[in-house]
C-alpha cells in the first residue's frame, strides 16, 4: 500500500528525533545506559512487526469557535 510518507525497511536505516512513537509485538526490557555525559540513556529493542514514527504535534487547521 502506498503511503504519503517515507518508510525505511532496509537494515541499518535509522531514525533520529526528539520523540519517536513505537509499537511492536514484543518490546525488550528497558536497559539503562550510564554514559559519561550527564544524560541517562535508556535503550530497548522492538521485535516482530515493529513500527516507529517520528512524532509530530498536529492540530486542526480550522480555528475553534470559542
Amino acid at each position: 500500500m502506498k503511503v504519503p510518507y517515507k518508510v525505511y525497511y532496509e537494515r541499518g536505516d535509522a531514525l533520529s528525533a526528539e520523540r519517536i512513537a513505537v509499537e511492536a509485538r514484543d518490546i525488550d526490557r528497558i536497559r539503562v545506559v550510564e554514559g559519561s555525559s550527564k544524560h541517562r540513556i535508556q535503550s530497548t529493542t522492538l521485535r516482530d512487526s515493529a513500527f516507529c514514527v517520528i512524532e509530530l504535534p498536529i492540530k486542526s487547521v480550522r480555528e475553534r469557535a470559542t
Partner: protein
Amino acid sequence: MKTDFSEAIGVQPLLANFINRLLAKPERGEELGLVSDSAGFSEEDIRRKAKEVTQVTQAMQVIINMPSSTWGTAVNFSSLAAENILLRREIEQIKQRLAELERKMPEEKVIVLREISREQAKQEIQQLFSSGRTLYYSDIAEELRLGLQLVVDICRELEENGEVKVDESAL
C-alpha cells in the same frame, strides 16, 4: 519462625494430666459437675473420645518436646534471638527495595485495539481534532485505541488535504 514454645509446653502437661485423671476415675466427672449419663453419649462413647484426645495430645507432645530435649546442649537462645532480629531487618530491607523497584517500574497498561474500518477511524480522528487540541500520533492511537500505523496514515492524509497541520508552537 516461632522460637518460644514456653506457652505450649506449659499447657500440654495440664491437658494430659486432666484427661488421664478423667479416664482413671470416671466418677470424678460427677465431682466436676458433669452428668454421667449425658444425653446422646454413652459411657463407652465418652471413653472412646477421651482416648482419641489423649492420643492427639501425646502426638502434640512428641512434636513439641523433641526440640526441647536438645535445646539445653545445642541451641543457644541468644544466638537464635539475634538471628531472628537480623532476619527481620533483612526482610524489612528487601521489602523497601521491592517497593522502590515497583515504583520505578513503568506501569503496564493494556489497550485492546479496536477493529474498525479506515473510514470510521478517519471520522473519529477528525472529531478528535475538532476539540482544538494538539495531539501526537501516539496520543491519538492511545485515545482511540487504534494501531499506530493506521493513525499515521490517516493523519498524513488529513495533512495533505489541508485539514490538519503541524503545530509549530509545540515543536
